[in-house]
């Protein structure tokens, strides 16, 4: 019985983790290149959710088509925000960028609220279900996980095989050195920020495929905090690290519940959240470069 539950949760954890991982890659990319923590991360995820909702409910299109659209929306938002604020704050203390990205998140939330209202929305993309005996998985979740893996792979190839990708990697390694070697560092900053936001907004589509309900302007807060934990698991500055961090996180979240449930007098689900932040602290202390080695 317990084994059945645990193995079911394990499967669920892997599927969930893939999506979580993808949803954190943008955060890690931006931190890796610009050393800026995007505290408004969740709000960009929320924008992606609304893009999906618009494509599916208003236009009647497959959510997969919403991915490139959301990516594009993200690129544009990212560029606008980069040139309006971030560019001028790159040399300012952390305080400035933390507050600026947070405010950008609030701005997005309030704008979306004015346009769409604060109703909790959802949609139903029904493409069947797989019964795995120990647990059941709707195909939409599997598609979301596969989509996440595909995007992660695409990003990997792009990093390794294109000039822009290698320029970006060189800036992550050493921005001064890259500048000396003739890399257009400012251009790389703008591009990375836009790409990071693009990925984040696109991840909103995948998260919405995974959980197609509860879409509202303020849905992002929880994802911001989760993304921090996942990013730290993956070393904070590596997008692939973040992807694997997501997998680990999904597993922890899903399996620790079953174990905590044995302790009497506690609320096991809340403790799983405590555990994830505890892990965050421990990793930051003993190994700030993350537990996942990814090149």
């Amino acid at each position, binding site marked *: 019985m317990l084994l059945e539950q645990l193995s079911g949760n394990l499967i669920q954890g892997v599927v969930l983790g893939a999506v979580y991982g993808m949803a954190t890659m943008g955060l890690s990319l931006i931190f890796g290149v610009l050393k800026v923590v995007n505290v408004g991360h969740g709000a960009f995820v929320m924008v992606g959710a609304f893009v999906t909702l618009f494509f599916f409910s208003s236009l009647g299109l497959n959510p997969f088509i919403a991915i490139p659209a959301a990516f594009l929306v993200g690129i544009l938002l990212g560029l606008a925000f980069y040139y309006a604020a971030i560019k001028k704050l790159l040399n300012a203390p952390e305080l400035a960028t933390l507050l600026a990205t947070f405010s950008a998140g609030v701005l997005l939330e309030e704008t979306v609220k004015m346009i769409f209202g604060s109703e909790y929305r*959802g*949609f139903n993309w*029904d493409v069947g279900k797989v019964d795995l005996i120990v*647990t*059941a998985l709707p195909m939409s979740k599997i598609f979301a996980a596969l989509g996440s893996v595909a995007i992660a792979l695409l990003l990997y190839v792009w990093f390794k095989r294109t000039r822009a990708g290698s320029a970006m990697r060189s800036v992550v390694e050493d921005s001064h050195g890259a500048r000396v070697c003739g890399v257009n560092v400012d251009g790389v900053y703008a591009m990375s920020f836009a790409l990071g936001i693009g990925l984040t907004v696109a991840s909103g589509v995948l998260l919405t495929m995974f959980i*197609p309900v509860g879409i509202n302007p303020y849905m992002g807060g929880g994802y911001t905090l989760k993304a921090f934990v996942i990013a730290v698991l993956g070393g904070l500055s590596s997008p692939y690290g973040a992807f694997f961090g997501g997998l680990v996180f999904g597993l922890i979240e*899903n399996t620790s519940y079953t174990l905590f449930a044995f302790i009497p007098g506690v609320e096991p*689900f809340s403790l799983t959240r405590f555990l994830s932040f505890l892990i965050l602290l421990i990793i930051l202390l003993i190994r700030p470069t993350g537990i996942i080695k990814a090149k």
Partner: protein
Amino acid sequence: MKFFSLKIILPAVLISIIPFISTFSAFAAGHGKIVIGHSACLSGKYAKAGEQAVGGIEACVDWVNNEYGGITLGGKKVPLKYKKYDCESKKESVTSLIGRLITVDKVDVVFAPYSSGLTLRGAPIAESHQMLYMDHGGANNKIFEQGFRYAVQTIGPATSYHKGTLDMVKKIAPDAKKVALAYEDSEFATMVMEGAKNHAEKLGFEIVFERTYPKGTTDLTPLLSAMKAAKPDFVLGGGHFEDGQLFNRQMADLNINVDCLSLIAAATLPAFSDALGHMAEGVMGPSHWEYGVTYSKEAAKEKGKQWIGPSQDEFVSLFKKATGDQKMLPDYHAAEAGAQVLAYVLAVEKTGSTDSDKVRAALGDLEFMSFYGSWDIDDSGLQVGHSMVDVQWQDGKRVIVWPESAQTGKPCYPMPTFDEKKDGKKALP
């Protein structure tokens, strides 16, 4: 150099003084009208409920002035005014705005903001000014165990949310034994859970699962998997708007079929069925009020109770007029806030004064019925007269299935399985 700095400082000083001066000029509510003050939650985390409450209050104020002809006070008809500020769903703003309403705007009664926390935040200010403080959005029973003298509740207490559902199952399905409780880990939902648990034990149900999930969670899979293993006959749970849709959706994803599922707060909203489609079929939720309830002037007469206020349909059209949104329907947040206006009007007329002590005393004796249902408070101010209804989604429509005296349709029990629902089976009795 010195001159230059003065140039900066002087305007700065002036600007910072302006706000205090302008409070002098703020109009003081004089004679000839009665003013309701409200620190409403128009933005922030309770914006959804706050918007509803404001619409409900405006609708009833409109009715009092234009249909009822104003409040009869000292032989004259006095108009009712409504003064609201946005507290942003934040406690710091609640106290300063309630302070302003009482001392600057000189309102005659203060309506509390939404949620138990914010209601508690404002209460000491109202108490210290001996100002009547009416609570339409704070369901925590403990508010009324604190000895507030001027606090009065219109919303029903949290412990009563799932009583009706349990009564219903007990009556229509004597074989159902095993109940699972899964609520949000918040002050409100855990209090609902406590009430449900006590009532379930009293009725002799076996509680096979009893867990909470943290606020703001985005994945309930581990909890629901464990719940599935407990094999309950029916499930009670929920918390707020956020998690209800998720709860239902993920039960469908995991193919957990039970005879009855009742979720607080979320399941009664139109957005719930919009978001979930066929998965919402047969799902239930307790509500303080729902469109379709059968409270009417005639029903009040039968019970020998005083009736006041618009009929249900009038209320809906006044609400739409007030919000300027033809698509938005009032939910129970609107209804309870509106009913609170009516309670106040009756109490003022009864005592012939707007003095808070007298109105509070009158409210204590008051018992009436409106579109919202019965209204009666105990000595502490806790609402005891109002009973909740249970709503079920049947063929995409909300049907009131419990209590029997208020029902607009029979309950569908057991509800169809998720697979049946997917194939188009409706939850019809």
